[in-house]
């Protein structure tokens, strides 16, 4: 109550001052950022026009021929494009469904450890894969899954089962991508949740215990709500990149036998755009991706706003 009163006096106070003199330093603070953004983001934005032209690098952007929507037509009509789009979305959804809960569960379990030392050690070790590049990770994965010398198959052979060539089977490929993707990032992602859990008021736990809540109930009623906001933030962000997937991981692990299920937009764009310098096409695809991403984020943001009263902006 008192807040509102103070607030209104503040407003009255404010309106007496010239907005300008109060705002000037604000503009000053904004200036370097705005300049940099104009130069490095907005000016290149005009380059999107390449998507509508048949870009001839030698003639320059202005003199290149205008082809309207031809580039968009090209990839939208290409059945390969829809195949890779389908793969991209399916893999990404599976990644979210499986990859999203894991850092959360890990963070919660970590929090339940009695030994603070073990907690710290495990956590530190868990985010190490994040620092390894995919080139290395792919090498490790390939050698572990190798049908002849890989650890897993050596283990299976002991039980008399024939070795499985994991990376060459369509059924195994997507799970491998997802599992290894999780392995690489769960530690870093869990950091967010660990932080959030640490911030939960311990009194809430005490209160729950007094009320007779078991461990599970405590987690359900205290921990989870406490990290709700964090989870939503990260979810919105992840959904925002639904139509893009990192290129390296798949490029380094795929092979002809699994193109059907593993080929995604980024690898497709790489072959079409970068290897053959088809800039117009790549720009057109990139532009479409941006639009789709934007729509997705906007929608999820709206949903988050209504359900959790929080939004990205």
């Amino acid at each position, binding site marked *: 109550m008192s807040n509102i009163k103070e607030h209104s006096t503040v407003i009255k106070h404010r309106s007496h001052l010239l907005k300008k003199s109060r705002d000037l*330093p604000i503009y000053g*603070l904004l200036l370097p950022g705005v300049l940099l953004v104009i130069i490095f983001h907005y000016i*290149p934005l005009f380059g999107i026009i390449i998507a509508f032209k048949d870009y001839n690098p030698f003639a320059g952007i202005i003199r290149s021929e205008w082809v309207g929507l031809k580039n968009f037509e090209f990839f939208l009509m290409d059945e390969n494009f829809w195949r890779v789009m389908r793969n991209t979305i399916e893999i990404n959804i599976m990644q979210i469904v499986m990859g999203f809960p894991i850092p959360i569960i890990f963070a919660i379990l970590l929090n339940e450890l009695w030994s603070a030392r073990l907690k710290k050690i495990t956590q530190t070790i868990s985010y190490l894969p994040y620092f390894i590049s995919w080139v290395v990770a792919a090498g490790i994965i390939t050698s572990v899954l190798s049908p002849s*010398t890989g650890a897993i198959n050596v283990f299976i052979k002991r039980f008399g089962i024939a070795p499985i060539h994991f990376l060459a089977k369509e059924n195994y490929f997507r799970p491998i991508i997802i599992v290894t993707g999780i392995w690489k990032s769960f530690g870093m992602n869990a950091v967010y949740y660990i*932080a959030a859990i640490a911030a939960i008021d311990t009194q809430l736990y005490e209160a729950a215990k007094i009320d007779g809540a078991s*461990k599970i109930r405590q987690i359900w009623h205290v921990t989870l709500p406490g990290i709700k906001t964090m989870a939503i933030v990260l979810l919105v962000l992840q959904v925002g990149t639904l139509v893009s997937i990192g290129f390296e991981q798949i490029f380094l692990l795929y092979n002809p036998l699994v193109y059907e299920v593993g080929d995604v937009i980024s690898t497709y764009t790489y072959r079409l755009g970068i290897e053959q310098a088809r800039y117009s096409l790549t720009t057109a695809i*990139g532009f479409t991706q941006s639009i789709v991403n934007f729509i997705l984020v906007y929608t999820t943001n709206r949903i988050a706003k209504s359900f959790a009263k929080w939004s990205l902006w």
Partner: protein
Amino acid sequence: MKRATGEKLFQVFNIFLMIIIMASVLLPIMHIISVSVSDSRAITTLGVGLLPVGFKPDAYISIIGETIFMRSFINTIIITVISTILSLAIIIMVAYALSKKYFLGKSFFVYFFVITMYFSGGLIPSYLLVSKYLKLNNTYLAYILPILVNVFYIIVVKSQVEAIPTDLIEAAYIDGAGEYKILFRIVIPVIKPTAAAIGMFTILNCWNMWFPVLLYTDRREMWTMQYYLRAVVFEKFLANNAENAPAVVGADVIPPQNYQMACIILVSLPVVSIYPFVQKYFVKGILAGSVKG
């Protein structure tokens, strides 16, 4: 403290799980380190498991001895330091400005920044801008400037500044403080953890940077560590995996495994070792930055 058997069991299970997780991470890393110090012949003939076969740190010695490696190392440090400091400065300034409740054009500016998160001109226009029109080829600026403004972090800091109790700030106004004073005296101390977190991510980003080198640099003296790693060590490895590498005498040579692995360790080591020390701030920062009210 009395603990129920159920809880003890759960704890045992938990510990067991954690051990498996740690193993899944540590074992491959041990493998990398072992390969990097093993005898190169042994690697191909016997295969190296978790322990090195013959201790030979030759790879490390030869890499560190190369002038271009040291040059790249220094470049990377320069870029990282300058980039992080400047980036943090700008992010904080913009975030603080945008967190103000009312000022002329606030929503305009907010959208102005946010839109850039989703739309970008793409590779070629950015390349043309930096190299052709601004003529920043072969300079450090080409590495630093384009990524200086990170809108996502601006938003993170902004929401944290907004979470500062208004009474505090109003009181300062009444005391006659100007914007800059408020910024330095009140806001910055509060967002220090977040700033540390952002700083950490920026450092990691700069440390791993290689693509701008490919785009804007011809001179080997301007390389960064990741690019050196990629160009010198993985050069033939990458070229061999490219679909249309012309078949040339000697083009099939792949650098020995221990060399590759040593490079990986050398490049990843600095960042990995800093992290545990800033972890404290990092965690506090992430938390405060995203959870609002």
